[in-house]
């Protein structure tokens, strides 16, 4: 657009933009400054960071008290494995939705009928539980109830149109995670596999708390809707004719996915991975609730310095800087890829 702007107007806009930018940057700036101050200086208000001495002691103390590299290792394991696992599920899912979408529901039952079926099956479950005083000790009855509870809903989701499925996936991100904390905490605490870290099987303690066996799938599931959505939008940009050509050329489904689709969608897949890595790296809610040592990531490492015994601002800041440094560096070097991926397809 050819639009002439006066120098004064440009200057004003520049100043406004800088002010907004600095305001937004300020908390990070403060954290970065506090990390290099002594505990008392960091705590004093008003802040006078120009005259107070600079120090590196916080980093030393933090490293001494909690093994930073151990947390980096844990975070890296969770982030990378959950991303890879996510791709394994998301690429086929996005492929099927992008290239053979269901335009119509594959069920001939009306919405009201489905509502009635689901309501009736839930009612049966609750009634049975009520009559048994809310506990079922018979394994068979338990399994039957679970099937009655899960199957109609699953079939209903299964028969929906692709657009509905996409919305449904996104809707799982609309619920506040705290709402699911207690069941997931109990599942982690009481059931399932029995590992600490990757450790050996210990049949005496039924727990996947604080283990990679729990955290990796959890982190994958948390971000799966976003991975599928992003990949879906990238795949939509790829002409279906090219995949059809591959089919005509004798490619199996596996070859079609690995030799044609994936290489073509590589920029999109890369930026999806990058975003997922950033999200998983910074995830705190579940990490803080479900880990405490063996599989604790960097968000747990930061929280160690916000303790009931008092706030250690300088050490907390130092830990924060240490925790975000790696992802900041990765983000800095991959920003072109990230921007390119996020705007992929906007301009052909």
């Amino acid at each position, binding site marked *: 657009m050819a639009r002439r702007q006066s120098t004064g107007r440009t200057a004003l806009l520049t100043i406004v933009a800088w002010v907004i930018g600095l305001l937004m940057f300020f908390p990070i700036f403060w954290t970065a400054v506090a990390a290099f101050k002594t505990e008392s200086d960091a705590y004093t208000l008003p802040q006078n960071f120009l005259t107070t001495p600079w120090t590196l002691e916080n980093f030393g103390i933090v490293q001494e008290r909690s093994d930073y590299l151990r947390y980096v290792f844990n975070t890296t394991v969770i982030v990378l494995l959950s991303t890879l696992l996510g791709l394994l599920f998301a690429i086929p899912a996005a492929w099927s939705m992008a290239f053979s979408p269901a335009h119509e529901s594959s069920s001939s039952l009306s919405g009201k009928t489905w509502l009635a079926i689901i309501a009736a099956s839930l009612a049966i479950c609750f009634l049975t539980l009520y009559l048994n005083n809310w506990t079922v000790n018979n394994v068979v009855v338990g399994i039957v109830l679970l099937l009655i509870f899960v199957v109609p809903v699953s079939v209903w989701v299964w028969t929906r149109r692709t657009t509905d499925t996409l919305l449904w996936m996104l809707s799982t991100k609309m619920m506040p995670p705290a709402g699911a904390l207690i069941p997931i905490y109990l599942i982690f605490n009481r059931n399932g596999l029995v590992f600490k870290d990757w450790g050996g099987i210990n049949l005496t303690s039924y727990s996947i708390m604080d283990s990679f066996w729990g955290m990796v799938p959890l982190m994958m599931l948390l971000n799966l809707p976003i991975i599928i959505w992003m990949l879906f939008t990238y795949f939509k940009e790829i002409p279906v004719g*090219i995949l*059809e*050509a591959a089919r*005509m*050329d*004798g490619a199996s489904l596996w070859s079609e996915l690995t030799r044609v689709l994936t290489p*073509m969608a590589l920029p999109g897949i890369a930026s999806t991975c990058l975003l997922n890595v950033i999200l998983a790296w910074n995830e705190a809610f579940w990490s803080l609730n479900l880990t405490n040592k063996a599989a604790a990531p960097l968000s747990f490492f930061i929280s160690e310095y916000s303790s009931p015994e008092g706030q250690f601002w300088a050490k907390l800041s130092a830990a924060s800087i240490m925790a975000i440094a790696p992802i900041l560096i990765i983000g800095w070097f991959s920003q072109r890829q990230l921007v390119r991926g996020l705007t992929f397809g906007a301009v052909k």
Partner: protein
Amino acid sequence: MGSIALKSVVKAFGEIKIIHDLDLDIANGEFVVFVGPSGCGKSTLLRLIAGLEDATSGSITIDGEDVTDAPPAKRGLSMVFQSYALYPHMTVRDNIAFPLKMAKMDKAGIDKKVADAARVLNLASYLDRKPGQLSGGQRQRVAIGRAIVREPRAFLFDEPLSNLDAALRVGMRMEISELHRTLKTTMVYVTHDQIEAMTLADKIVVLNAGRIEQVGSPLELYKAPANQFVAGFIGSPKMNFVGGAPAANRQAATIGVRPEHIRISRDTGEWAGTVGVAEHLGSDTFLHVQAAALGTLTVRGDGDIAAGYGDRVFLTPDPARIHRFDDKGIALR
């Protein structure tokens, strides 16, 4: 070998029927062109043969083998797409080699076949380029190269020339015709361009609204169209249709006369009219004549006709070449 037979094939998308109970036989080595207006189902029909769409009912056999439920890869057919559908991340060499790699051919065999195809299609100096660095015509050649290396039972072409400019289109048309003569493989070709259909086909299948209107050689369709639709679709400019008295005089509901079968005269003739638009092409002249109750008639004369806008002319149809149709549009013979 490559004979294809369709029996009672129906294709419906939900409630909408695209192909209605269609039967068709394509003999080995034949060049068959599906032609029809857009939305007539010609591309869908090709995709049904390819296996990219599943038939709702009916059967498709290739060389006597029922392939109705076989995936595209198992049908032994090659397809050239309108959009070329080259793999953008592979070089020309890898594009052409892809079907051979999928067939698990050994490296030496692949190299030889790719080199042969590249020589035939004049692509030898482009083998290490990516499709993005090629012109439209070159991309189309790569697509054809990818189709020929696997020596299919039949080639399927889905409007392969419609993305090319006019000059290139004529050249590629001849190359495809040449290719058919050399390979002698069955080819099924979809186009909406009747010139492509007339020049390439051994047999033309005219489709309309999911039904076959007529099957025949190009000249059969031109000389003896089975109905008004085929008569109007084949031939350029379009056949003139006249109802009313001139048709009734010839015991028909409608008569059709091709623009080239009408004689133009300044002073005498069966129908009188006034010239509207006159298109002087040098070799020919197309006159659009307002002929009172008959409507606008298109007439093709030689290049020297001087008639222009507003001139009064007389038109006489060639009695031997008048097509007569009944009230349902079916040709009367």
